[in-house]
């Protein structure tokens, strides 16, 4: 490091500021955890209980909502990554006219307000007479998670030497065999993180799902309506804690795992 960037005291001040912001970011999450074990009706604080956790395990609607979200997220992540791999290979390996336009279009769902996109898809399905349900939500979620998978996959593809693929072609492998034996194993870490990103994004998505799901409810939709009825609040907080901890663990594990694998492979 260069000392011109930061004096000793400056570094100390910034470290303090950093710690402060991290505390600000995690304090609300910590408060949720505390309240999830709180043995009295929200909001007064007294005693320790697991009552809310039991209630949530026994709550059929809530379990059904979690299950619906899990199915949607699983289908979305598989669909988005499959399309993402295809389009990333096209973007990273082929040259064709209008490539900048195509890549802009592929990434444009990143900036469209989800609310507007949800409504637009709703109108489309209404117009062509498809009834709403899990498949319609999956379609919507694939569109919005596709750019994330591309953003993870393209840099990885660009890191891999094309010579490896060319060598496979020279040895008589066709496109598919080359992909299966050479390209795919090399991009596998990125594929896994793309799957996880698409899964978590879909699992948490509210705006598009709320317009497209019809009568069922996904987990975020259940949460949203529960947030309007305070009597369910403690239970919801308990679920919240479980989901938060699971997603934090998955995210941290995925990221560390990816860095570990990539440093081992040394690409």
């Amino acid at each position, binding site marked *: *490091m*260069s000392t*011109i*960037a*930061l004096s000793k005291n400056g*570094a100390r001040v*910034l*470290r303090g*500021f*950093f710690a402060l*912001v*991290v505390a*600000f*970011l*995690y304090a*609300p*999450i910590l*408060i*949720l955890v505390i309240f999830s074990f709180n043995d009295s009706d*929200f*909001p*007064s604080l007294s005693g320790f209980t697991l009552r809310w956790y039991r209630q949530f395990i026994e709550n059929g609607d809530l379990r059904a909502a979690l299950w619906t979200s899990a199915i949607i997220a699983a289908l979305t992540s598989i669909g988005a990554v499959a*399309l993402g791999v295809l389009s990333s290979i096209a973007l990273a390996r082929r040259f064709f006219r209008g490539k900048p336009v195509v890549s802009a*279009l*592929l990434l*444009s*769902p*990143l*900036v*469209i*307000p989800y*609310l*507007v*996109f949800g*409504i*637009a*898809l709703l*109108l*489309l399905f209404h117009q062509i007479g498809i009834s709403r349900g899990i498949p319609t939500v999956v379609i*919507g979620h*694939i*569109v919005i998670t596709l*750019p994330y998978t591309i*953003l993870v996959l393209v*840099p990885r593809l660009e890191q891999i030497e094309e010579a490896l693929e060319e060598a496979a072609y020279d040895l008589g492998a066709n496109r598919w065999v080359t992909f299966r034996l050479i390209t795919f194993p090399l991009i596998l870490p990125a594929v896994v993180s793309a799957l996880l990103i698409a899964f978590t994004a879909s699992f948490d998505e*509210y*705006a598009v799902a709320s317009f497209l799901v019809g009568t069922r409810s996904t987990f*975020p939709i259940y*949460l949203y309506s529960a*947030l309007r009825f305070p009597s369910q*609040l403690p239970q*919801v*907080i308990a679920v*919240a804690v479980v*989901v*938060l901890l699971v*997603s*934090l663990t998955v*995210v*941290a594990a995925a990221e560390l795992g990816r860095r570990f694998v990539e440093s081992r492979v040394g690409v």
Partner: protein
Amino acid sequence: MAWLGVFFVAPIVIVALYSFNVYTLFPGPHGFTLDAWHTVAGSGIYRHLFWKSIEMSLIVSISIVVLAYPLAYYLALSGTRRKYVLLLLLIAPFLTSYLLRVLAWKVILGDQGVINSFLVWTHLRAPEHPISQLLYSRFAVMLVLAYIWLPFVALPIFVALENLDQRLLEAAGDLYASRWRAFVAVTLPLSLPGVIAAFFFVFIPTIGEFVTPSLVGGTGGYMYGNQIVDKFGAGFPDWETGSVLALFLIIVVAILTALFSRFLQPQRVAAE
């Protein structure tokens, strides 16, 4: 490509058709008109809501970019060995559920929430007079939005600072530039694209925000996005007017994207 054509472009075209009254929700005489556009353009309510939302997103985006800059600066340039672990620590909350983080603030800011309970407990405030402006206000919406987006904003700034050629800073030092001068003349201008990208990545989604305002905003925090949702909601659906509002938002976002596109390099951010 075909996938996006059918499920991304086509829906937007349909919205446009609704806004021109080519399609309507209720059967009846219809055809191409600009009535819905005239109604919206002539209505002070929509214009007011739109500017209010722009103003709120501007305040949120600018303040968190200012907050995030020193964080990214510390991570990228202090020479700390654990910078990626610290970066992950900073960003992790962003990857957890959005609604749950809103829920946490409801617990904190409510009339009987953590802050008010604390004030009562310390006798700073009588139990029957909580600070009720905390929740269901513009302030609450902006605070929660800032909380939600802060971790994310640090990322593009960090990438810009990380890619900064440190030899330039050393050169500035050799030329007897003070730290402050080196920052203003070298670091800041070179990291500006990252700062602008960060600003844009928050500003765009928050203009169309409707979940946070509807949960913690009350009437004071009602935003443009809520208006759109209500037009498509169960009460008095008005898909034509709603389509005009939605399409207008897309147009605004598209123009902003075009203006800022040279600063946006999502690939670089994702590669980190």
